[in-house]
C-alpha cells in the first residue's frame, strides 16, 4: 500500500551505528571497566479467533521469536547503556545512552508503536492508502464480495537524540531532536450530499511527519533555579486533501469530491521558569511562556453537490492560520512553621486567534455570505491553599480557587468559578492512614441570548440550550479512602469517590452527571512462600439529558409548548456499570529457584440508554413504545484474561520462563450489531461503510517460552 522500505532501512542503519559505536568504545577501554547486562529471547505461539486488530491494538503478539537486551558498560566516570525491547516486533524500541557522570550525557532512541483499528475492512474504492479514491462505474457495486480488502491501522516510528551538558555546574545546557513518522489508514466519514444524504466511509491516508527541536539552558544552585527553553515543532502532512468519487452524485469519474486533511503547521514555544528560596522556608516560583502555531491552506473555490459543481467566492483563496498563546504562572509556597504549609498562586493563560477571517459567498447557502469565527479565550485563576498539621496526627488542608474564563463565543462568553476544598488525613496509627475530602465547584455562566430574525427563526432554540463544556454548574465531589497495613506483609486499601454535577441553568442539553467509584486492593505475603494479591473496581455513571425535536422554521422551538406529534421534548438517561477485578498468586515453590505466577483479570462494562418521548397524550411513532426504543447494549464488553507462568532461576545468570496466557474480548453494541456495509443507497438510511470498528471480539491463546541470560 505504501513503501516502508525506507523506514526499515533507517532503523537498520540506526542499530548498526549504535552497535558499532558501542563496540568501538569497548575496544578502546581496557582498564577498570565493568560490563553488565542481560539478554532474553522469547518464543511465542499465538492461536487466535476473531479480530486480530483489537487484540493487537497496541501490541504485536504473533508466532515467532523476539528479544530484549540491556548492555551496560562503565569505566570510571564514563558509562554506556544500550537496551532494546521487543526486538523484531512492530513494538520494538532501542535506546542508546551514555555520558560522563557530572559532565555530559547523550541518548539516541528509536521507538515503534502500532495502532490497529480494524483488519479486513472492505471498500469499493481503488487507490486505498493514497489520496485519490475512485471506482470504475457509477453507481458502485453493492456486492461486498467484489470490494477491495484493506486494514485500518497506523504505525508510529520515533527517532530521537538528546544531549545534556552539565560540566559547568550549576549551569547546564540540553538539546534534543526528534522525528516522528506516522503512516497508515484511518476511517473518515463524509456526507454524500448535505443535508439528508448518504454517509460514505473513506479510507484516508496517514502520512505524517513531525519534527521537534528542544533547547534549554539553565542554572540550578540554591537558592536560585532558572531555565530558558525553546521548542520548535513542525508537522507535515504529505496529503492536503483526500480526493474521491462521490457515489451520491451522478458526476463522472473525472470530477472528484475532496475532503480536507490536517494542514501542515509550525509551532514554537519560548519559556522561562524560575524558583527562588525566600526567608521563612518559602519559595517563589514562576513560569512564563509564549507560543505560536501557524498553518496555511489553499482553499477550494467550488465543491461537489448533487447538482454537480457549485462555485463559491472567497475573500482570499489562501487561509493563514495563526494562534498565539501566552501563559504566566506565579506560585508562592511557604512552610514557615512545622505545622503550616501554604501556597498562593496566580495563573493566566491566553489564546489569541490571529488567523485570517475569510468571507465566503455561496448563493446556494442561507445566508449566502458568511465568514469563519475566530475562537480565542483567556483564563485567569488565583487562589490559596493551606495545610495544618494538627495534634493526634491529623492533617487538615483547605483551599479556595477563583477562576474566570472569557471566550470569543456567542452563547457563553464568560464563566466565573469558585472552587472550595477541604481534606482531612489521619495517620495516628502505624498501620493505617485514613483520608476524607470534599470539593465544591460553583460555576456561573454568563449567557448571551441569540439574535434572531423573528419567532420562526430556528436559532430561537439557542435560548434554551446550555452547552455542558461551559454551562453553569454545581459540582460536589466526596472522597474517602483507607489504607491498612497491619503487618509488613499485608496491605489492604479501600476507596470511594462520589461526584455529582448539576447543570443548574440547562434546559436543553446535559442536565446531570453522577459518578460513583469504589475500589478495594489487597496484597498478602504468606510465610514468604505465597503472595496473594487482588483488586476490585466498580464504577457507576449516570448522565441525563433533556432535548427537543421540532420541525424547521415554524417557531416550535420552545420546550414549554404543549407537545405535538412532530414537536416535542425527549430525554435520555445513559448509565454505565463497570466492574473490574484481578486475582493472583505468586507461589515461591522453591525459594529463589522456582516461582509460579497465576493471575486472572476481568473487566466488564454494561451500558444502557433509556429514552423517553415526552409526547403527552400524543401517540408515539408507529411501532414504538417507551420500552422498545431503549438501547440495552451500548458499548458492552467483557475482557477476560488468565496467565500461568513458571519462572526457573537455574543460577544467578540463567533464567527460564514458560507459560500460557488466555485473553477473550466480547463486544456487544446495538449501533454495530447486524452490521451492514450498504444499509441503503440513498437518503439518511443510506451509507457505504467499510466495516471500521465492527465486531472487535476475539479469543486468543498465547504460549511462550523464554530464557534470560544475565552477565
Amino acid at each position, binding site marked *: 500500500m505504501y513503501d516502508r522500505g525506507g523506514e526499515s532501512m533507517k532503523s537498520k542503519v540506526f542499530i548498526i551505528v549504535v552497535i558499532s559505536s558501542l563496540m568501538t568504545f569497548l575496544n578502546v577501554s581496557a582498564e577498570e571497566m565493568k560490563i553488565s547486562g542481560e539478554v532474553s529471547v522469547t518464543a511465542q505461539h499465538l492461536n487466535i479467533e476473531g479480530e486480530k486488530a483489537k487484540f493487537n491494538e497496541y501490541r504485536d503478539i504473533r508466532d515467532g521469536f523476539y528479544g530484549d537486551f540491556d548492555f551496560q558498560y562503565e569505566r570510571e566516570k564514563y558509562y554506556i547503556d544500550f537496551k532494546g525491547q521487543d526486538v523484531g516486533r512492530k513494538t520494538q524500541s532501542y535506546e542508546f545512552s551514555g555520558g560522563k557522570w*557530572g559532565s555530559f550525557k547523550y541518548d539516541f532512541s528509536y521507538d515503534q508503536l502500532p495502532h490497529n483499528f480494524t483488519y479486513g475492512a472492505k471498500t469499493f474504492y481503488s487507490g486505498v492508502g493514497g489520496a485519490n479514491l475512485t471506482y470504475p462505474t457509477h453507481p458502485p457495486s453493492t456486492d461486498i464480495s467484489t470490494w477491495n480488502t484493506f486494514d485500518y491501522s497506523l504505525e508510529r516510528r520515533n527517532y530521537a537524540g538528546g544531549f545534556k551538558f552539565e560540566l559547568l555546574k550549576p549551569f547546564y545546557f540540553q538539546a534534543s531532536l526528534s522525528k516522528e513518522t506516522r503512516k497508515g489508514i484511518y476511517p473518515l466519514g463524509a456526507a454524500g450530499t448535505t443535508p439528508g444524504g448518504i454517509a460514505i466511509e473513506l479510507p484516508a491516508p496517514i502520512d*505524517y511527519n513531525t519534527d521537534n527541536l528542544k533547547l534549554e539552558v539553565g542554572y540550578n544552585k540554591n537558592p536560585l533555579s532558572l531555565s530558558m527553553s525553546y521548542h520548535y515543532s513542525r508537522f507535515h502532512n504529505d496529503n492536503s486533501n483526500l480526493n474521491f468519487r462521490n457515489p451520491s452524485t451522478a458526476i463522472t469519474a473525472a470530477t472528484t469530491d475532496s475532503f480536507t486533511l490536517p494542514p501542515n503547521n509550525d509551532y514554537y514555544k519560548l519559556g522561562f521558569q524560575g524558583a527562588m528560596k525566600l526567608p521563612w522556608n518559602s519559595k517563589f516560583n514562576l513560569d512564563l511562556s509564549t507560543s505560536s502555531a501557524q498553518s496555511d491552506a489553499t482553499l477550494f473555490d467550488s465543491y461537489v453537490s448533487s447538482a454537480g459543481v457549485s462555485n463559491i467566492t472567497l475573500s482570499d483563496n489562501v487561509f493563514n492560520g495563526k494562534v498565539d498563546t501566552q501563559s504566566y504562572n506565579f506560585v508562592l509556597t511557604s512552610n514557615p512553621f512545622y505545622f503550616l504549609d501554604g501556597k498562593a498562586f496566580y495563573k493566566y493563560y491566553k489564546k489569541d486567534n490571529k488567523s485570517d477571517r475569510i468571507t465566503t459567498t455561496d448563493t446556494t447557502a442561507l445566508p449566502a455570505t458568511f465568514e469563519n469565527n475566530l475562537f480565542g479565550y483567556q483564563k485567569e485563576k488565583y487562589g490559596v491553599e493551606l495545610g495544618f498539621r494538627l495534634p493526634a496526627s491529623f492533617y487538615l488542608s483547605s483551599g479556595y480557587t477563583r477562576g474566570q474564563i472569557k471566550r470569543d463565543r456567542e452563547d457563553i462568553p464568560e464563566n466565573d468559578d469558585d472552587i472550595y476544598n477541604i481534606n482531612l488525613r489521619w495517620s495516628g496509627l502505624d498501620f493505617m492512614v485514613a483520608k476524607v475530602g470534599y470539593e465544591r465547584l460553583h460555576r456561573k455562566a454568563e449567557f448571551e441570548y441569540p439574535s434572531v430574525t423573528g419567532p420562526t427563526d430556528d436559532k430561537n432554540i439557542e435560548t434554551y440550550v446550555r452547552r455542558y463544556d461551559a454551562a453553569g454548574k454545581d459540582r460536589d465531589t466526596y472522597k474517602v479512602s483507607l489504607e491498612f497495613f497491619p503487618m509488613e506483609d499485608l496491605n489492604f486499601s479501600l476507596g470511594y469517590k462520589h461526584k455529582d454535577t448539576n447543570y443548574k441553568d440547562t434546559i436543553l442539553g446535559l442536565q446531570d452527571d453522577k459518578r460513583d467509584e469504589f475500589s478495594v486492593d489487597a496484597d498478602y505475603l504468606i510465610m514468604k512462600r505465597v503472595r496473594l494479591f487482588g483488586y476490585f473496581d466498580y464504577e457507576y455513571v449516570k448522565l441525563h439529558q433533556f432535548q427537543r425535536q421540532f420541525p424547521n*422554521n415554524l417557531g416550535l422551538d420552545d420546550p414549554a409548548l404543549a407537545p405535538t406529534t412532530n414537536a416535542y421534548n425527549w430525554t435520555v438517561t445513559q448509565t454505565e456499570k463497570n466492574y473490574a477485578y484481578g486475582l493472583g498468586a505468586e507461589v515461591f515453590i522453591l525459594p529463589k529457584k522456582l516461582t509460579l505466577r497465576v493471575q486472572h483479570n476481568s473487566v466488564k462494562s454494561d451500558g444502557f440508554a433509556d429514552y423517553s418521548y415526552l409526547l403527552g397524550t400524543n401517540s408515539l411513532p408507529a411501532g414504538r413504545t417507551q420500552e422498545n426504543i431503549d*438501547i440495552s447494549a451500548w458499548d458492552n464488553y467483557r475482557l477476560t484474561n488468565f496467565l500461568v507462568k513458571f519462572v526457573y532461576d537455574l543460577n544467578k545468570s540463567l533464567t527460564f520462563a514458560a507459560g500460557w496466557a488466555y485473553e477473550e474480548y466480547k463486544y456487544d453494541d446495538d*449501533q454495530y450489531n447486524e452490521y451492514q456495509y450498504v*444499509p441503503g443507497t440513498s437518503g439518511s438510511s443510506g451509507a457505504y461503510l467499510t466495516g471500521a470498528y465492527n465486531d472487535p471480539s476475539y479469543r486468543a491463546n498465547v504460549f511462550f517460552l523464554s530464557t534470560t541470560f544475565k552477565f
Partner: protein
Amino acid sequence: MKKFIIVLSIFPIFLFLWGGLRPQEVGGSDGTVGVEVCKGCHEDRYNTYAISTHSKKGIPNSPANKEGCETCHGPGAAHVEKSGERGVGIFIFSKKIADAKSKSAKCLSCHGETKDLSFWDLSKHKVSDVSCDNCHTVHSGTRKNLKATQPDLCNICHRSIRAQQNKTSHHPIREGKLKCTDCHDHHGGFGPKMIKANAPNDLCYQCHAEKRGPYMWEHPPVEENCLSCHTSHGSNHAKLLVSRVPQLCQSCHDWSRHPGTIYTGFETFRGPSKSNRMFARACLNCHSAIHGSNGPSLRGKTHVR
C-alpha cells in the same frame, strides 16, 4: 510577546531578596564510623546499596564519594554505641520513625539543585505526604532506583486511574508504550493536574500535532479543551470519548432537523428506521472533521469535509 517580556523583566526584583539567603547545611562527618562498620551488621542492606547508582564512585558527590551509608542515614557512632537498635541514634527511612518531610529533605539535600526537583514544592505529592522513598529505593539496581515500573508504581496510590486504564479505549499505558511521566510532572510543575504543559491541549498536541491546526472552521470546545469530549486515562467508548455518540454531540447540538432528533434502537442496523445518524459511528459517519476543517462553504463549517 511584549507582555511576556514585561513580565519577564519583573523577575530581577526578586533577585534582591537573594542576598542573605544561605543553602541549608546538611550532614557532617563528625561521629561517622565508615561503610565497613555498617556492612558488618547490615551486609544484606549494604549489598543492595552496592549495586545502586549511589554506590558509583564515578558520580561526583555520590554517597560513595562522601560518607557512604552515613551520607543519608547520618553519623553512625551514636547508633553503634547504643547497641545498634533499630532507629536508635540514626536516621532511617521508616514510616514509623521519620515523617515524609524529613525523609524527602535528606534526598533534596543533594538532588534539590536539579531542574527535575526545582518545583517539588508545587507538587501535590509533597502536600500529600508522599516522600521520595515511596517511589524510590536507594537499595536497588533498578533504573532511577524505582521500586516498580510504571504504571504499576503510580497505580498503587492512583487506583481510580488504574480502573480507567483497564477500559477498552485507552492510551497504550498498560502496554508499556506510554508512561504516566510522559504527560505528568511527578516531581511538581505548573500545569493543572501536574501535567507537563500549561493547558491540556498544549500537552495533547505534542503527540497529536495534526490536531493543532489552526483551522479556518474551528469547533470551539475542541480548541478550548480536548477534555471537553475526551478523557485521557480510559473510556468505554471509542476514541476515549467521555460518552457515546450521538448523545455526546446532542448534549450541545439541539436544533431543528437531525441535531435535535431522537435516535433510538429503531434507528440502528436492525431497526425499522435505519439512520446513518445512529448506526455505526453515528454523527461521525458524516461529521468527521470535528477537530477543524478548511473545507469549502457549509461543508467546512459543518465539519463534513
